């Protein structure tokens, strides 16, 4: 009874936290970060409860206001929702722990409280998006997430972020326009906005009006592709992710682009059926786009001299992996995609946070200015190295397991291209991460800076994310059971 209510309660609770935060910011600014941490900590607790319960008792559904399915808004607590909610709460919590010391330095004076409100708002939006079982509710949550992520980019202040944020806003608006149009087409076709009812109706109506169905699918894929930063539609991503403050970058790169991939999964396998999609060749289109994303993202990253731009282009490549897993169209592929969502969220937020500390210390985003930082901040640089190794795909780290799962999935589905692609992209990742590590540790500057780590909170956050990365890599079986179950439920 209570469990059904839990996914909705999570969103509502976080949203209430976001709405009372401005009052704290106005009259009690010191309380903002503890309050944010409290809300997110409570979210983690609720998400763990949800995950354990869902995994033992099966998926749940809750109808807001007690109105049953075709009319009411459905909130789903299935495997993928529970996993994503926990991931969002976990990454947000540790980002805020990290930010507790950096928010004051990186943001303009007095913006800390409002920034905390934004962080809670975007977490509520992302949680609402992954638990939503209603197409229009998804659209509203997509708008909440995209408007607050534009605001997160803007929060740093200064003139550099403005054009990047405007570009992000314009393209995100075009993306949500496409999504809304796609939802409209689906509504014409089925007469329902609830995903389950629309899917049942699509079984017959989709065959009767194939062209309308394809148009709806195309609009949804283009819209979500823009939002997720899938390769040819990624143009906003490097600017927005590299100019934002490091905590914002960690969230934008680690979580925001992923929730759209989760929406793609939900639409593909719960709204449409795989037979319907295979008839449209969308799997080949996505396969080509994701291979292009992996290669082009890596090649662009190779030529970057700015550390945060390098990380942002690396995100473009990693989104390719997730869509590669979706485009395989098998439970194994989905499993790999979900595993990579988790692994990449952990390692990319860690990389951005570590890079933020290094950049703040060095006072420059250029890679060559970071010389000798490995000696000045051994722990932070070490964590950066760990994240980079995971990105390259060293065994015992989460990045290796997700590459392995994707390669196996590709092999099983008879697509022999994916295994060599994984090896090639691992080499490309090594080609752009290893020079950074070399600069950090093996090339000293003119004078060696004194050895001062950042505040305890920063090291703690990096350590927690690294622990997650190691646990996922060393004993993947612990989480794989959940992920397998979530993938098979999603597959339906």
């Amino acid at each position: 009874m209570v469990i059904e209510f839990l996914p909705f309660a999570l969103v509502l609770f976080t949203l209430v936290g976001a709405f009372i935060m401005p009052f704290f910011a106005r009259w009690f600014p010191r309380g903002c970060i503890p309050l944010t941490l409290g809300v997110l900590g409570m979210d983690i607790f609720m998400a763990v409860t949800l995950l354990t319960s869902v995994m033992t008792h099966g998926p749940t559904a809750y109808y807001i206001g007690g109105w049953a399915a075709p009319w009411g808004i459905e909130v789903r607590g299935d495997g993928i929702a529970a996993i994503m909610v926990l991931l969002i709460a976990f990454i947000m919590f540790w980002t805020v722990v990290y930010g507790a010391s950096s928010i004051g330095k990186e943001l303009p004076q007095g913006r800390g409280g409002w920034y905390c409100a934004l962080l809670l708002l975007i977490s509520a939006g992302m949680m609402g998006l992954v638990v939503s079982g209603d197409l229009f509710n998804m659209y509203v949550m997509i708008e909440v997430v995209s408007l607050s992520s534009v605001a997160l980019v803007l929060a740093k202040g200064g003139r550099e972020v403005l054009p990047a944020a405007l570009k992000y806003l314009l393209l995100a608006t075009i993306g949500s326009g496409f999504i809304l149009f796609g939802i409209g087409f689906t509504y014409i076709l089925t007469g329902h906005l609830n995903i389950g009812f629309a899917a049942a109706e699509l079984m017959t109506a989709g065959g009767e009006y194939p062209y309308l169905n394809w148009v709806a699918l195309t609009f949804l894929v283009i819209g979500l592709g823009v939002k997720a930063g899938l390769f040819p539609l990624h143009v906003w991503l490097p600017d927005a992710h590299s100019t934002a403050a490091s905590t914002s970058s960690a969230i934008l790169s680690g979580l925001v682009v992923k929730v759209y991939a989760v929406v793609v999964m939900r639409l593909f396998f719960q709204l449409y059926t795989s037979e319907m999609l295979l008839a449209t060749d969308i799997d080949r289109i996505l396969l080509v786009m994701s291979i292009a994303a992996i290669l082009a993202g890596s090649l662009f990253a190779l030529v970057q001299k700015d550390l945060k731009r390098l990380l942002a282009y690396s995100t473009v490549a990693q989104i390719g992996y997730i869509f590669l897993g979706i485009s395989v169209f098998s439970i194994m592929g989905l499993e790999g995609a979900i595993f990579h969502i988790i692994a990449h969220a952990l390692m990319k937020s860690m990389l951005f946070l570590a890079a933020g500390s290094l950049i703040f210390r060095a006072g420059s985003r250029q890679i060559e200015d970071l010389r000798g930082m490995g000696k000045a901040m051994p722990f932070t640089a070490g964590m950066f190295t760990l994240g980079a190794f995971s990105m390259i795909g060293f065994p015992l780290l989460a990045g290796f397991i997700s590459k392995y799962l994707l390669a196996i999935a590709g092999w099983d589905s008879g697509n022999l291209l994916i295994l060599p692609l994984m090896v090639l992209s691992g080499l490309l990742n090594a080609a752009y991460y290893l020079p950074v590590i070399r600069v950090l540790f093996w090339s000293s500057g003119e004078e060696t800076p004194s050895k001062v780590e950042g505040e305890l909170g920063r090291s703690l956050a990096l350590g927690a994310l690294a622990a997650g990365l190691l646990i996922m890599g060393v004993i993947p079986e612990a989480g794989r059971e959940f992920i397998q179950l979530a993938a098979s439920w999603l597959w339906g």
Partner: protein
Amino acid sequence: MEFNFLLANYPYIFSILLFSLGWLIIFTQANLIKKVIGINIMESGIFLFFLAVGDITGGKPPIYVEGVEQIYVNPLPSALILTGIVVSFSITALALSIIIKIYQSYRTIYMPELLKIME
């Protein structure tokens, strides 16, 4: 038949035209304010589309009167569009405030000049 079919569905055709025109404006115009106008044209296209979806020829506003049999238009798309209008309004407000900030710090709202200054 084809022509009559198109004529009968003219709101849909106009909505697609407006939508395409909108994002074409966003991509091609150099003036940032015009890009925001493009956003609004695009969103209007979507709103028109949803209203056309909900409309039924000869339909009355969906207010139930006891004992009167009549055809009602579908109220759901209109309700959705109310939300859409609010979203579009907030996007416009945010975009315009960013443009004001851009003008204050770069002294231009033309994309080519902006790119030149940024280099």
